[in-house]
């Protein structure tokens, strides 16, 4: 008896930290892979990968415009596994944004953002923003044509924010244009400030999950038995971690992280594209006045996302994908409408003559800002009104339909920007690019 106790105690100390992050027992129903797809856990593992590979890369990277590009070339060519190291950091960074975003969608579509999970939701949103910021600051570091112009374009977006935009841009760039001060700022943000903030926020995020009693449980699963975290949960997490590592290593050994020519401030490549996760925004910029595309729209979406958990409703559906059978149908309808409407919107705006050329006297804020904005928002509002009537939706099913519509539309914009925009940002077929 005492012997058994002793081994258990020593084993426990080995798993001390892992067990510290978990509750002792978890509900068996939450193990169903299709409930969470293990996305939150994958994000945590990716953070570990990024910290380790990032710290190793830091031994060889030189943050100055003169030597940054060469230090990367050098590392790739002469360092053992140097290229592999950069590839893993690159592909994990992309996977990180993807998985964190999908994790957010999972939480939204299982209704897991309502109190007591409201703070978890908001810290999660902040983490997603920090993640994009981390990706964005890291993008400049190779100092090649791709990174220089993507950062030039993306930071120019800031100057369209009224009043605060230009000062923020100046502080971020450390001057009027991308140069040595910019690289110093971005390097410090990418390798110091942002990772620390992410780790601190992640701890808060985890603690709030435990505070809320773990992963969301559907009404029908409330009677599901509680089982020991170790081995049941730990083993599952280990399998997901190994599978994820395997996929990342596999991709990194096949595909190299892009590295173009050294940055040349006099020549923008044609077409000059922002980072892939900003391509939807860049596509939006072709159709909308910058004030709408980079300020009014994003701020509205973010404010709505923060406010989402606090909407009043008697609706108690949660822990099931898309909340209810009606929720599934309305989500499908919203997705189909989002795809079709966005494609129509892009085509019409391409075929119509430039409103500025047509009405040279009218202010562009009106012709390319307010008018298309009201048209797009009006169409959306009419559709949602129709949808609500068609399925007699409850409030949270309604919010869900809006989220689906937004996400699908942004995805179509992103795909258009990446695959269908060729030279001069004109629409072309991907095979003609």
């Amino acid at each position, binding site marked *: 008896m005492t012997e058994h106790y002793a081994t258990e105690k020593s084993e426990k100390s080995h798993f001390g930290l892992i067990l510290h992050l978990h509750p002792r027992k978890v509900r068996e129903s939450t193990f169903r892979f299709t409930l969470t797809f293990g996305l939150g856990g994958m994000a945590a593992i990716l953070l570990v990968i990024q910290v380790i590979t990032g710290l190793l890369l830091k031994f060889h990277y030189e943050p100055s415009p003169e030597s940054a590009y060469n230090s990367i070339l050098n590392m790739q060519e002469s360092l053992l596994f140097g290229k592999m190291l950069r590839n893993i950091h690159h592909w994990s960074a992309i996977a990180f944004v993807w998985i964190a975003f999908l994790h957010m969608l999972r939480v939204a579509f299982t209704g897991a953002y309502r109190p007591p999970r409201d703070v978890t939701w908001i810290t999660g949103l902040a983490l997603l923003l920090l993640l994009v910021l981390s990706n964005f600051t890291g993008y400049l570091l190779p100092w090649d044509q791709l990174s220089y112009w993507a950062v030039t374009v993306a930071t120019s977006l800031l100057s369209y924010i009224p009043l605060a935009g230009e000062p923020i841009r100046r502080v971020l760039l450390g001057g009027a*244009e991308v140069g040595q*001060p910019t690289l110093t700022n971005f390097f410090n943000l990418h390798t110091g400030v942002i990772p620390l903030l992410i780790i601190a926020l992640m701890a808060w995020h985890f603690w709030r999950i435990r505070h809320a009693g773990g992963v969301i449980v559907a009404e029908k699963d409330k009677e599901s038995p509680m089982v020991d975290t170790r081995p049941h949960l730990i083993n599952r997490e280990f399998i997901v971690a190994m599978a994820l590592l395997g996929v990342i290593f596999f991709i990194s050994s096949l595909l190299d992280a892009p590295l173009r020519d050294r940055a040349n401030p006099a020549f923008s490549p044609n077409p*000059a594209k922002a980072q892939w996760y900003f391509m939807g925004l860049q596509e939006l910029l*072709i159709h909308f006045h910058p004030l709408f595309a980079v300020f009014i729209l994003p701020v509205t979406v973010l404010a709505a996302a923060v406010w989402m958990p606090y909407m009043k409703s008697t609706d108690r559906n949660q822990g099931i994908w898309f909340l209810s059978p009606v929720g599934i149908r309305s989500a499908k309808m919203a997705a189909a409408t989002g795809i079709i409407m966005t494609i129509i919107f892009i085509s019409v705006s391409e075929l119509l003559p430039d409103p*500025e050329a047509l009405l040279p006297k009218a202010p562009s804020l009106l012709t390319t800002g307010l008018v298309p904005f009201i048209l797009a928002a009006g169409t959306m509002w009419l559709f949602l009104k129709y949808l609500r009537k068609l399925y007699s939706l409850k409030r949270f099913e309604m919010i869900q339909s809006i989220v689906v519509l937004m996400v699908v539309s942004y995805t179509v914009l992103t795909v258009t920007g990446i695959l269908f925009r060729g030279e001069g940002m004109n629409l072309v077929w991907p095979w003609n690019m």
Partner: protein
Amino acid sequence: MSGRIEHTGSEHQRVRRNFLKRLWQILGIIALAEFLWFILSLLKPSKENHKSRPADTLRVIGSVEEFPAGSVTPDRVNRLYIVREEDGGFLALSLTCPHLGCSVLWNEECRQFDCPCHSSAFDRRGIVLSSPAPRPLDYLPVIIEEGKLKVDLGSITRRKRFESNQLTYAL
């Protein structure tokens, strides 16, 4: 423990305790404000603390004869274009697109500037031909001294439209 202490004590003590608590809060806010001010001043671009004098930013681009009438000549090093009107007037245009900061390219075939990022187009004088660019290309004052063309890189100027006083003529 502390909770019990707060409930005992006279009215006078309670008022004093509240006053001290408020004082701490105010001091905390002041300390935070000072700290933020310190961080902001640390982040302020050091370049802007000592404004460069015009002498440092005045560049000789070339002699007047190098630019035939009706020509558009790029200067990649100083990131500008020298445009010469048919009547001999000079105009220096920044090659930075006012939309999102890409470098515009002169298209000799269509006689216009194209932006490779978002397909804005500008005519020879930098006026917007097609959006999304929100304003014409910025221009720089041209100075002609002893047959030499000089441009002040420190005074890139925004404008709403083309006006004849943006042109400089050789005497």
